[in-house]
């Protein structure tokens, strides 16, 4: 079967690719596009390691068909930092040791960024339920939750 031609925007830049009709967005990101920051932990939408944004909404890219990217705005972990300047969440995760092995980290960061865009003052409860779709086996989540809440506080302070 002929491949599908898709025109999309990834991390603010126009991008075209060819894909199979049944190929997932994650496969295309990691394969032909070489954006391996999104990870595959399960392939069934249970772990959140492949979290990306589509028009600002978080999506498990393993559950999205690549063809669905046509005309959409895709955001991946590779677009989170501004060049060498880390996003405040990325910086806080380093300072707070909110990662151990780091495999879940890109997905957690993408989801957390999306939370703070919607809710600049999340409670612990808000953060725990927003990130409930991102499995982390190393940290017990404690330092992740603290890092997200502290980043939110810093960003509120900076915005004032």
């Amino acid at each position: 079967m002929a491949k599908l031609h898709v025109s999309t925007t990834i991390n603010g830049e126009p991008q075209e690719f060819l894909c199979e009709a049944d190929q997932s967005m994650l496969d295309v990101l990691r394969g032909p596009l070489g954006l391996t920051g999104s990870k595959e932990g399960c392939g069934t939408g249970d772990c959140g390691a492949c979290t990306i944004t589509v028009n600002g909404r978080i999506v498990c890219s393993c559950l999205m068909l690549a063809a669905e990217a046509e005309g959409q705005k895709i955001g991946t972990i590779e677009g989170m930092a501004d060049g060498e300047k880390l996003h405040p969440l990325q910086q806080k995760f380093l300072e707070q040791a909110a990662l151990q092995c780091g495999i879940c980290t890109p997905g957690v960061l993408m989801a957390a960024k999306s939370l703070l865009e919607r809710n600049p003052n999340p409670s612990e409860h808000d953060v725990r339920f927003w990130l409930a779709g991102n499995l982390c086996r190393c940290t017990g989540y404690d330092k992740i939750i603290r890092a997200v809440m502290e980043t939110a506080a810093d960003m509120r302070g900076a915005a004032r």
Partner: protein
Amino acid sequence: MSTKESTSANDNKWIGQRTIRPDGADKVTGRAAFAADTTMPGMIWGKVLRSPHPHARIKSINTRKAEAYPGVKAVITAKDIVDFPLDKSVMLGIQDMRWMCRNVMAREKVLFAGHPLAAVAATTEKIAAEACKLIEVEYEVLPFVIDVEEAMKPNAPVLHDFVKFEGKPSNIAGRLEHKLGDIDTGFAKADVVIERSFRTKPVHQGYIEPHACLVSVSDGKATVWSSSQGQFMVRAMCAYMSGIPQNDIRAIPAEIGGGFGGKTIVYLEPLALVLAKKTGRPVKMIMTRTEVFHASGPTSGSYSTIKMGATKDGMLVAARGTFCLQAGAFPGSPIRGAAGCAFAPYNIPNVYSEGFDVVSNRSKVAAYRAPGAPIGAYGTECVMDELAEALKMDPLEFRLKNAARMGTKAAHGPVFPRIGFVETIEQAKAHAHYTTALPKARNGKLYGRGVASGFWFNAGGESSAQVNVNEDGTVVVITGHPDIGGSRASTANITAEVLGIDYRKVSVLIGDTSTIGFSNLTGGSRVTYASAMVVTQSTEQVIATLRERAAKIWKIDPDAVVWENGEARPAGDNAGKFEPLSLGQIAAQASATGGPIGAGKQLNTTGAEGGFATHLCDVEVDPDLGIVRVLRYTSFQDVGRAIHPSYVEGQMQGGAAQGIGWALSEEYIFDKNGKLDNPSFLDYRMPVCSDLPMLDSVIIEVPNTKHPQGVRGVGEVPLVPPLGAVSNAIYNALGRRFYSLPMSPPKVLAAMDLAAE
């Protein structure tokens, strides 16, 4: 916070500082290369055909149709893997190559649903998977047994004809015992004796990164990129199973996305290597999550019986434990951890502890964080709770009264040196968590608090390091241990501390098998312990060289030069008056003063000492739904010395979370055909962040005197107490005790219904 904290402290004191990990930026930006992230030109894909049967004799395998399928480049079966005959053991660490070669590719029989039978390399992953379906296997299906108690019965289906127990074919592949004093005499002195049996289910390590590798072979020389807890283990396993000598295999450690013991053995690497050799193309293999659940190595399910006795004034006088652990398809369950650690926290004069290693038709067990110890401690800590109640003693006070201390003889052998177990109990007793009252029952919800303690051996072993001073005075350190949870950060702290320079001037890399000396597995809580030793000794050797170079520049005796705060100084007024020389100044003159400056050390590190912890757990039980929520959790652990406190806390928190999952929700569920029924993260229920509270961690530092920085090892102890702590909390809430795990909602609900009748 951490950067500020670091710079406000003395700049030359890095141990104990919350520095930024050297690999951090790569890991938060998606740049870090994990095993599945690597590709090569001309790369093809490998896939594995797995058995649908838990137990069957392989009568024939026909690969012709698969080989003829367009896009297929090679098909391999057990005949392409080096055979290790069953009558002669060849050990690699704790692994027996007889079992390893049969585990990566079934030989005479398939022994679990998911057991590999063949592997295909093809131009795409999809073609490889399609071709697997074309392989024809003729089986003689055999009766199977999975449960450990069933497998021990005299009429159970026997997995291996050559495994004999007491002279007869059996699934009991091994037994060990630890004895101290005489338990009959001991129990005769007891006023209170409690004996209970406990059951646990197999649970998976649950690393988020599935097993993955990429292997290329060129001119007979292989390069292996893979995710493992030891590149040297990968190299040796590949060499054994392919027949390629070790010097022709370069094993490169990719970043590893979690292991917890589960990546201390190989599954894919030897297959990819043989496929790559056969095709002349680089071969990539990645397990799906389903394959990880079916065919990697969850820990043992278990059946154990614990009997403990105490006098009426609360002194333990005797303990007996029997621990039967499921090994899976091949011998090797962690009975040493279960039988050895179960009673180690307590000073008990009479102990008899025995373990049975039982094979059964599930995947071969792999290590899981303090292998066996959580199973051992689970029963002991529940019985300790019952004894304390019978004696009307506070459970922490009861533990304190019987706590192992310096001079206590443990049943598994050692007489403990100075250890910090007592401190963990004392700090738990004094902590606000323990002194704050539980909520009163309300809205039908019930509340309870549990305590439990635990012990793990910790380990030393082989490590290598190389420390090189660059021309600009910065430093590169190479060690041989895959960094699984921030160990590069502790290496940077140690090097910076010993050398007296800013930690940001130290780069830390993990070498591959061809660029750094042999280093044993990342496991046993040994990495910071052992690498600190080799890094410290290498750095001290570098300092000796730096002093010599300064002496040469000043034309004085090297003994007249001291190294302080990152500078060479004259030892005193008699040495002469010279301006101090910084590391950078000496490095810049290295060529003229004798050449490159660097040193390496290779050691078989000894002196590892056990670690102890005490945990507090508060739960809320909803009797209508059977749901147990952990409301508050605090861990107290003697770590010796925390080189990087954040990553120490992280180990304590992560272990607690895994233990809560093991206690409440995680289990392997097999269907009536012996196939795993819940091989996904949806159905195998690990804690997500809305399931957990903050996990407080209290670091206690009673230094290990045999270690240059006082390190004991941290990673594994945190998984030992939680099963008991959660169980005891639920008992405290309900007044009913569960003797099997997990205490999942259906089980709790059934118990509540039973009580209501």
